[in-house]
């Protein structure tokens, strides 16, 4: 089947759609140069491609396209309430890319966007300016790999390195870059920054194999976690989202034990634990895209527009993982 798909579908980024205005940016030409065989198609606005009606994300995931654009507004956003702020005031996030190269069955991006294509904003400097305006008022905790996985595409886009450089000169800024990738190599030449957190989402291999299509296995992610720690980076581990499946206790226990048998627990900045949760509207769209998903077909409870496992199961799952993790990590470093 995989071979059939390989023969049938164009390779990733076979077509790159570029806003006319974006063509004037060095970043755009730098990216385009990396894909000499790709067809370059000029567009007026990224939404002409990204927001078309009647797209099919599931099929598009087999051959996603790249869209290069200039971000004009909403350069940074205030953090959403469903997301952990790790005790930080002034929690913001920014999306210098939209959408993700991976294909996780439970990913909320399928409900958020109507496409699997990836937008890269080539004017990251404008986002820097906006962040500096906020920094002039107060300190900022900023998530930079939201609604995307920046590190997964670092070798192509390079936004991760730009954020690291930016953090170097802004000490009242704390940045979190979250990833599922095993692509630390792409930033290994950078000097670690105290105010820059590299954060890995970890899942049991059983979940990765069945539901996190194209993401690296746990061993590969852990290799990077260890490398990052070795090079002095602040590292956060996220057991979030926890996914309910038959035998969940067994495979989550196995994962936690594997993680802490390899990673020096005392070097971990903190840990986040949370169950799968998603807005009701997104879930409806996600189920439309993946009608045969066992994760999305769970009979979730909806509270205040957010769907998740019922309270008892959610508590069971979080408590179970919490109890396992606290054997290795001080409780004041565990966020739920």
């Amino acid at each position, binding site marked *: 089947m995989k071979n059939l798909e390989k023969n049938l579908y164009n390779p990733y980024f076979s*077509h790159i*759609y570029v806003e006319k205005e974006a063509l004037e940016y060095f970043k755009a030409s730098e990216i385009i140069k990396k894909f000499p065989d790709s067809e370059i*198609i000029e*567009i007026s606005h990224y939404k002409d491609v990204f927001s078309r*009606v009647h797209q099919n994300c599931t*099929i*598009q995931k087999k*051959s996603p396209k790249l869209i290069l654009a200039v971000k004009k507004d909403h350069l940074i956003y205030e953090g959403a309430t469903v997301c952990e702020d790790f005790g930080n005031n002034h929690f913001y996030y920014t999306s210098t890319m939209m959408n993700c190269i991976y294909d996780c069955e439970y990913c909320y991006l399928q409900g958020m966007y109507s496409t699997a294509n990836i937008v890269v904003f080539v004017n990251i400097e404008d986002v820097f300016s906006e962040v500096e305006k906020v920094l002039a008022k107060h300190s900022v905790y900023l998530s930079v790999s939201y609604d995307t996985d920046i590190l997964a595409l670092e070798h192509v886009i390079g936004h991760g390195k730009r954020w690291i450089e930016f953090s170097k000169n802004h000490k009242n800024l704390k940045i979190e870059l979250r990833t599922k990738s095993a692509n630390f190599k792409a930033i290994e030449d950078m000097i670690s920054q105290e105010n820059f957190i590299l954060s890995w989402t970890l899942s049991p291999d059983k979940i990765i194999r069945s539901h996190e299509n194209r993401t690296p296995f746990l061993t590969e992610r852990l290799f990077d976690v260890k490398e990052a720690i070795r090079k002095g980076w602040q590292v956060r581990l996220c057991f979030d989202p926890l996914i309910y499946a038959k035998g969940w206790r067994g495979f989550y226990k196995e994962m936690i034990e594997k993680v802490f048998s390899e990673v020096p627990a005392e070097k971990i900045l903190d840990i986040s634990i949370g169950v799968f949760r998603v807005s009701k509207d997104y879930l409806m769209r996600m189920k439309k895209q993946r009608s045969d998903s066992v994760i999305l077909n769970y009979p979730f409870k909806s509270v205040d527009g957010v769907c998740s496992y019922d309270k008892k199961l959610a508590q069971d799952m979080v408590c179970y993982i919490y109890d396992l993790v606290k054997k290795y990590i001080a409780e004041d470093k565990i966020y739920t």
Partner: protein
Amino acid sequence: MIYICTALYCEAQPFIEHMNLKKDLESNEFQIFKNQEAVLIITGIGKVKTAVAVTYLLSKYQASSQDLFMNIGVCGAQDHDILMGTAFLCNKIIDRDTKKHYFPEMLLKHPFEESSIETCSFAVGEGEFSLEGQLVDMEASGIYQAANVFLQTHQLFFLKIVSDHLSIKALTAEKIAKLIGDKVETILNWANEMSPAFMYDKNVLSEEEEKILKKISETIKLTVTMEVQLKQLLKYYKLQYGDFTDVVSQYIGIECKSKNEGKKYFEELRKKLI
């Protein structure tokens, strides 16, 4: 099913002959030809006519998510280096009147050249206007807009074969039929090769299982909302644990006297299925 739309009979003729399509005598408004695998409509020239024809075709035959749709026809090319008879798969459609752009998906490999096409409301002669598209036709933008109402973007394909360099004086029906005829096999082979890409629609419950759902719903007097919830539970159970027949079979022949009693059974079932 493959839906084909062409503006002219001479563009359709090679497909009618090659696929042995028969005229649909039930259609008076448009000329439609079909067999078990394909339906072809001749739309006439221009954006409005084609949009109406495509709407007629896709509603009459109830196009589904497993179908593919192809607009096939001749076009003009601005660049004299492009040889007559070159076949293009269009990756960008420009509507000259509205200046709107449409982008067919480019997910699948194909044996054609790629290009943009500009749809004009009138025949354009060489040098008359500056054109944004490399190719020129009179239908594509109308077809895209109409077909995209019924089908998803990845189901739409716009195949254009160059017949002239913006001078249609010497163009005859025979020449057009020949230009298209030369590409029929390539186009149909490609359509066959890519058909597995359209086999993605997965109904979780089989027809038999849907019947079981209906039966239980009637027996234990479920409301519409509860029936939807039960369907969700059955889907989940099947995907997580497999066959649910044994779990639910005792509720098929049950005698339930009131809605309240039904609610009790529903709760029982819910607990068993999660």
